[in-house]
């Protein structure tokens, strides 16, 4: 297991050093500094073995966190732990910086004592930790409170404490997607996928039992087969369902229930967290289509015409649209005419950047440019890098729809209807490229 944990500043000075195992000595602290932080070359691996001691490190701004061990530990676990450690520290004192770490070193030692015992990660949910690691000592706790804390830290629902109360029960769901595309000049999709996240902010009282439903194809098909609904309805809803390639869940979700019934049920942590991540590759709505036309006029001139078409409901508005058209290295001058937005040739980036603030669905816009080239004797042809695009749209390109999020809290007197729910969809461009 983890033998020791060190935190360094960018100079390699130790800010925190906690040793859990006898086989890790003080010289390990120096070994990492000399061989990794002060190393001349770029880091070639996040895991380094120096004299039979393995060092795992992650970097946050200019702070290095290193876990050290001499055993055959679970490497994935060590990295997950280091990330978690960063999350916990951020939740307690904000940004991970040298100043913040120095200001909170006593707290950090206290946390390290709690979340890592003999090198074994223990409960590291901030919700639970904040109930008893407060920097104020345990004073006014009654016996009930104490046992509540311990049962929460060790219990099945380690991520939520009991006795949370809100005057207004409210929850926010954000479906955040990034859509990736690689398209051929002829408009053929070479590869496309959406990676999405469902982020939830919950302000709910008590220990609410939640059930999340979306238009997952497997669930909808199953219901369609149930026979209670008529077939036509089953079919029409089948059209709107989406096939999810894979998804992962926050630890609050009951995985075995998802595996057997494909239902997503959980008791949520309080506040903001990521409920699930998913990936889809089928039937993706591509919000924009880019149609490039490049013509070489002689050896010193290029004519470029690019049309973009928005492909979604006219009532919706896309924002922050940016089209980036690469130009050859020997470009000497560019003249651009565009119908909408602003376009500029940026010599330092070797590209024409065309920006449009807003654009409604089912519209098209066009840019044409004349690029003048310096004559060169370089025989090598210009490689024509792809045209890339950035944008943000108010819907989910995967087609994912939240069907419901039901909240049940049997002990308190509020029901599903009393909860105010907000759902928002945001689709952003990931790597969205069209070859030309």
């Amino acid at each position: 297991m983890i033998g020791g944990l060190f935190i360094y500043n960018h100079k390699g000075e130790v800010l925190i050093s906690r040793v859990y195992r006898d086989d890790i000595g003080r010289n390990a602290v120096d070994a990492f500094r000399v061989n990794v932080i002060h190393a001349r070359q770029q880091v070639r691996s996040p895991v380094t073995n120096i004299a039979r001691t393995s060092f795992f490190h992650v970097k946050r701004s200019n702070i290095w966190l290193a876990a050290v061990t001499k055993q055959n530990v679970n490497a994935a676990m060590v990295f997950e732990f280091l990330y978690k450690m960063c999350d916990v520290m951020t939740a307690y004192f904000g940004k991970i910086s040298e100043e913040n770490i120095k200001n909170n070193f006593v707290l950090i030692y206290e946390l390290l004592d709690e979340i890592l015992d003999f090198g074994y990660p223990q409960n590291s949910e901030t919700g639970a930790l904040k109930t008893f690691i407060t920097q104020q000592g345990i004073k006014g706790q009654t016996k009930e409170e104490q046992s509540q804390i311990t049962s929460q830290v060790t219990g099945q629902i380690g991520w939520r404490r009991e006795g949370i109360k809100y005057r207004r029960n409210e929850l926010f769901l954000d479906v955040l997607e990034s859509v990736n595309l690689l398209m051929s000049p002829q408009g053929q999709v070479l590869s496309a996928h959406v990676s999405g996240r469902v982020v939830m902010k919950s302000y709910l009282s008590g220990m609410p039992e939640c059930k999340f439903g979306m238009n997952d194809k497997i669930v909808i098909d199953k219901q369609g087969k149930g026979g209670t609904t008529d077939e036509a309805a089953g079919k029409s809803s089948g059209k709107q369902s989406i096939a999810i390639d894979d998804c992962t869940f926050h630890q609050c979700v009951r995985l075995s229930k998802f595996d057997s019934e494909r239902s997503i049920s959980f008791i949520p942590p309080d506040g903001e967290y990521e409920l699930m991540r998913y990936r889809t590759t089928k039937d993706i709505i591509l919000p924009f289509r880019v149609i490039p036309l490049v013509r070489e006029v002689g050896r010193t001139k290029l004519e470029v015409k690019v049309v973009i078409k928005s492909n979604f409901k006219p009532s919706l508005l896309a924002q922050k649209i940016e089209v980036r058209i690469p130009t050859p290295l020997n470009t000497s001058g560019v003249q651009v005419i565009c119908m909408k937005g602003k376009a500029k040739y940026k010599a330092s980036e070797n590209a024409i950047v065309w920006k449009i603030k807003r654009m409604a669905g089912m519209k098209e816009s066009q840019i044409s440019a004349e690029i003048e080239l310096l004559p060169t004797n370089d025989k090598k042809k210009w490689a024509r890098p792809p045209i890339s695009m950035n944008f943000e749209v108010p819907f989910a390109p995967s087609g994912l729809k939240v069907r419901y999020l039901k909240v049940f809290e049997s002990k308190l007197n509020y029901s599903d209807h009393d909860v105010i729910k907000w759902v928002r969809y945001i689709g952003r461009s990931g790597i969205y490229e069209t070859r030309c």
Partner: protein
Amino acid sequence: MTDSKYFTTTKKGEIFELKAELNSDKKEKKKEAVKKVIASMTVGKDVSALFPDVVNCMQTDNLELKKLVYLYLMNYAKSQPDMAIMAVNTFVKDCEDPNPLIRALAVRTMGCIRVDKITEYLCEPLRKCLKDEDPYVRKTAAVCVAKLHDINAQLVEDQGFLDTLKDLISDSNPMVVANAVAALSEIAESHPNSNLLDLNPQTINKLLTALNECTEWGQIFILDCLANYTPRDDRESQSICERVTPRLSHANSAVVLSAVKVLMKFMEMLPKDLDYYGTLLKKLAPPLVTLLSAEPELQYVALRNINLIVQKRPEILKHEMKVFFVKYNDPIYVKLEKLDIMIRLASQANIAQVLAELKEYATEVDVDFVRKAVRAIGRCAIKVEQSAERCVSTLLDLIQTKVNYVVQEAIVVIKDIFRKYPNKYESVIATLCENLDSLDEPEARAAMIWIVGEYAERIDNADELLESFLEGFHDESTQVQLQLLTAIVKLFLKKPTETQELVQQVLSLATQDSDNPDLRDRGYIYWRLLSTDPVAAKEVVLAEKPLISEETDLIEPTLLEELICHIGTLASVYHKPPSAFVEGSRGVQHRRIPPRAGSVESAESPEVGQSGSSEAPPAVIPSQGDLLGDLLNLDLAPPTATVPSVQPSMQMGAMDLLGGGLDSLLGGDIGGSPSMGAGLGAAPTVMPAALGGAPAVGGGLGDLFDLGGGVGMPTGFYVVPKTLWLPAMKAKGLEISGTFARRGGIIQMDMSLTNKAMSVMTDFAIQFNRNSFGMAPAGPLQVLTPLSPNQTIDVSLPLSTNGPVMKMEPLNNLQVAVKNNIDVFYFSCQFPLSLLFVEDGKMERQVFLATWKDIPNDNEAQFQIKDVHLNSDAASNKLQGSNIFTIAKRTVEGQDMLYQSIKLTNSIWVLAEMRVQTGNPNYTLSIKCRAPEVCQFVYQCYEMVLKN
């Protein structure tokens, strides 16, 4: 409140000041002082002098202060063991505190104070805490047992803490279970043979229940522990898999990887035709792909593991090529790993895309990455024949860029492409020669020299080119020197008239002026060959080269299997077994994948193979004829024994054993094979022996021996008479008949090759398909003289059991391919299982009893052996000749019961009970084995041995 001020005190006399503050009456001041002490400790200053003063602050109600003092104690107790005792009282008191958080804190800290004297005082509080009513205290105490064990293992055992810990596996609180599992697993690692983590279906069930409820970390501990369990049968294996698969959707990548480990391991036990097996395979791909969207460090861990998984089960990710395409912003370590996996997944279906990507990568800035990309293009050419032409033209484009390292890398891979597709792309040689001067790396120089030597007849100024290298001969690395020597000899054999001077020059450089024994030996061999028999030299040096294998850098199967059992851990990141980087005994035990139900999947380790082959022949009183056989065995041993000793040095070429063997024997172009590094080192030292009398002697002895065999061996290993395996009609005139024998611990395939065609046959080679027991030729097929029409030759081929394994139907089926100058022919034959019975198959009586009980009764098979007219002793003697050992004999009411044990080459034990009734020619045989499929074949062996 800012604490950073504590870091800035650097005054002189600081310790003195601190001492005063620590002894202050004011609580606040005390706390401040302790904080300063901790800050100094963190930066590495020695503040141990303050020990008594700090310990004095321990008696406090302020929890924050208490925790700080504890932190100090943990750091310095070891250096002040006597003073540490002062703290004991407080600990013991705190362990009784009404607040569970304080009880746990005390027991947690106490375990971290690594002072022998303290441990005695720890026992009582720990015992209480292990049974505490509060789960938080119990889960802390569970880990404390592991701490204590690390300090004083004996104490933990004596105090019975291990049993208490085992009880905690049934605790109602999932986190207590998880910590108990973690502690037990760690303790068990330092006692490899103890049955500490006694995993049985009941405990497994408890663990699986806790798995659903505990924290993400607890899930990891439990899954890692589950991975060490060997299910009893495929049903149990399936039910565990079913309960583990939901974990694949966990957000924590470590949980996912540990679940993948369990599934990869247990899947081995499932029958492949099961529907569930296919479902499971499909379920594995999406989570592995999802791991690639994690943070870069985790991506790196995931990719290193995927590299193993792709080698073990390529089918899982074969359609997922695109996700391994390198992104511009990936850190370099992720890029390099992705590239590795891309090469492994490249196939005809996706090659166009892959090549386009690789070409893109070859223009990036990172030197290592570019080199690897260039090399990858070459690998694609070799792997996917259809793409070879495009790969070559891409490589030529890259050579035109004149970027030095790109050119060198391209030349190295083009050499391999030439080997793979002879006489196809030689037109590019001219382009390559243009870049001769820019090559400064040994590998590239060696590759270029190889190309010049190999195609000397097509390069007009080959002699000039090679001569130019010769000038600085002594400054070159050994790799280049060896290559240069061979190339010039080749050149001489092709153009003898113009190059006599050159060859003499290089031979004298190699033999007289060099200190390198490899170089000298190779030089002498060439020299003698050339001076005694130039025709033979031509046959040896210019011999046709065996094909090179498609895959490179494959991890050796036994290591791969071990690494699969370590998925997610450091071992899988380093691609090394834990013993290579972990000190001491901890975690060094080898892990194995359990065999598929009944069949024999696990390949035998090379060590076992070797020790088996050096084993003395069974101690049977030899009869006259047998003596001859044994003597010959002894003589025969040396030449065959050299073969296994070459093996380890050919790690990478393990798949290509035949090729490698031929290569080194013929002394051809060792440098050209993909396992160049290894081949070069090992081959020349073997060559003299191989080229010397050895093969001839071996052959001769083989003939003699066959004569002996023909006479018949009354006891000892029973050899079935040769049967016809390949009729001449089916093989264009080549007839093969043969049989198998086990002599002196070595499995041998005796064959008679008859040429019934009109023309001479040459260039014999043999290869086996994968088979149930991993049998593979341990050396090349030694037919040295051409086989003229109507001639018969007897050959004896030593076999090893280290080859790739695949279950065959029937189990003892062996598919063989024999090649000669005319064609390749295939036939299959069946070998008696007794071939695989090893010499050390005699089990201890106690072990026998325990094992017999341990194997479930379902696995027992009963057979009747009829018409045997032997008494029990004679039968037992006869069986012993075939390595079926009688361990004990009991006589009950005129019935002799013989208890016998057999060990197969893959370490599977077969136990048997044979009942012999005096006067009754029918024996009853009961066979028990963990792999029940073999029983039938074992019975056949009994039948065969007893009746002949």
